[in-house]
């Protein structure tokens, strides 16, 4: 796994830049990660979503899907698309320092 420096901190990431070590993440890093993908400011609403993702991952060991964030977390899907435009599932996971949600082929 490559190591990279984000906001002055060394972290482990995958080929696409998703963090791979849950414990290396902190809120300062999240701000920097958000900037990397064009989200300049994390609002309170962003933070509520990110915290849900972090908590859910620590319980299930998997990055929650968009559907799970909306049905279990209670954040309407439309809202998630506004907060994390175009690719909410990936963007949320990226900022929350969680592994990339996976597909098949």
């Amino acid at each position, binding site marked *: 796994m490559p190591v990279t420096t984000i906001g002055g901190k060394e972290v482990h990431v995958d080929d696409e830049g998703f963090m791979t070590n849950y414990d290396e993440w902190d809120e300062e890093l999240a701000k920097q990660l958000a900037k990397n993908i064009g989200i300049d400011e994390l609002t309170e609403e962003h933070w509520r979503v990110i915290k849900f993702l972090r908590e859910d991952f620590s319980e299930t060991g998997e990055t929650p899907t968009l559907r799970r964030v909306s*049905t279990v977390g209670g954040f309407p*899907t439309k809202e998630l*698309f506004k907060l994390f435009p175009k690719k*909410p599932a*990936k963007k949320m996971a990226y900022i929350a320092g969680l592994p990339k949600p996976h597909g098949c*082929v």
Partner: protein
Amino acid sequence: MKRLVVLGAGTAGTMVVNKLRPRLDRNEWEIVIVDQEPTHFYQPGFLFLPFGEYEPQDVKKPKKRFIPAGVEFIEQTIDSVDADANTVLLGDGTQLTYDELVIATGTHPRPEETPGMDGPEFGRSIHTFYTFEGALALREALKGFEGGKLVVHMVDMPFKCPVAPLEFTFLADAYFTELGMRDQVEITYVTPMSGAFTKPVASAHLGNMFDERKIHLESDFYIERIDTDKNALVSYDEREVPYDLVVTVPLNMGADFVAKSGLGDELNHIPVDKGTFIHKDHDNLFVLGDAANIPTSKAGSVAHFAVDIFVPNFLRHIEGLPMLERFDGHSNCFIESGHGKGLLIDFNYDTEPLPGKYPLPGIGPFTLLGETEMNHWGKLLFRWMYWNLLLPGKELPLPALMSMAGKIPEDE
């Protein structure tokens, strides 16, 4: 007398009872299997029905034919499970108590979960091949199709056999080409994922299959509803994909009794240990096949490998011994690519699909991540193997855990 209850007599449930009956003492263990449907469908065959390559009788047989002597088959709906009391309630009010429970009730398409899908247009301009009836209705629709916009769509991950819509797309391209009307059909593939192929090595090898076939791709499309006045799929970020004929994979969800019993996640899939399939709160409850929430594909091949790992574990478990085997998420599937060719992919929790050769004693090798006629024959041969070897629980020459033999890792 102890009782093992298996819920669902589909691919996984049928294999399990066939493998366990000869291995469990009949004076000690009673086995009961419950399913609401008398017919066993060979679901991979649903892909070929719309194109007239299979006939209805090729894909269905009576379930009872595959249930061995010494196993009681109860044809009933499952109403709920009380995992604290070790009981299952059936639709007719019967209560079954169990010592060990295996849930194998699968996952099923739910068109009603997407606004606009399950209305009067379902079966007319909106189709699915994910059910037997749906595949037959689609066959008529394809026959009558005079050209226009054909949209192949999937609502959300996870759904069973995640490559099936890709195969449908390739087969549709070949079908219309062979009819001499491909230039009158515009094919668009609409996916909630970021591409048709999302794993790096597979994308590198297969990425050009869409361009070669002039198939349009609409990615990151998360559907909100179908607008049946405009004939368009509408996404949450307000994109629209117009269609004349849409072939969709509706949202897949586990059975309702799972939710009612408080066992499932948001899609009624049941989280279990991904190595042993045991439930974390109930040490006499296992979930096999599509019903489980484990991070690998929902597919018959996975169910087969999972059962091979489960059986020896279960036999140790009931003796009070630790379970020694651990499932690695092994999945293996043929991908039809049209014109009598196919691809084969093989992967697990940690290893993505890689190119190379897949050895199969007596028959293979098959080519991995490449298009060959042999792979197409492999897929067709699989139907025979399914009915005659897999369901009856006979040994197949396929190892349960993934092997790197013949594969070419990327960094070599």
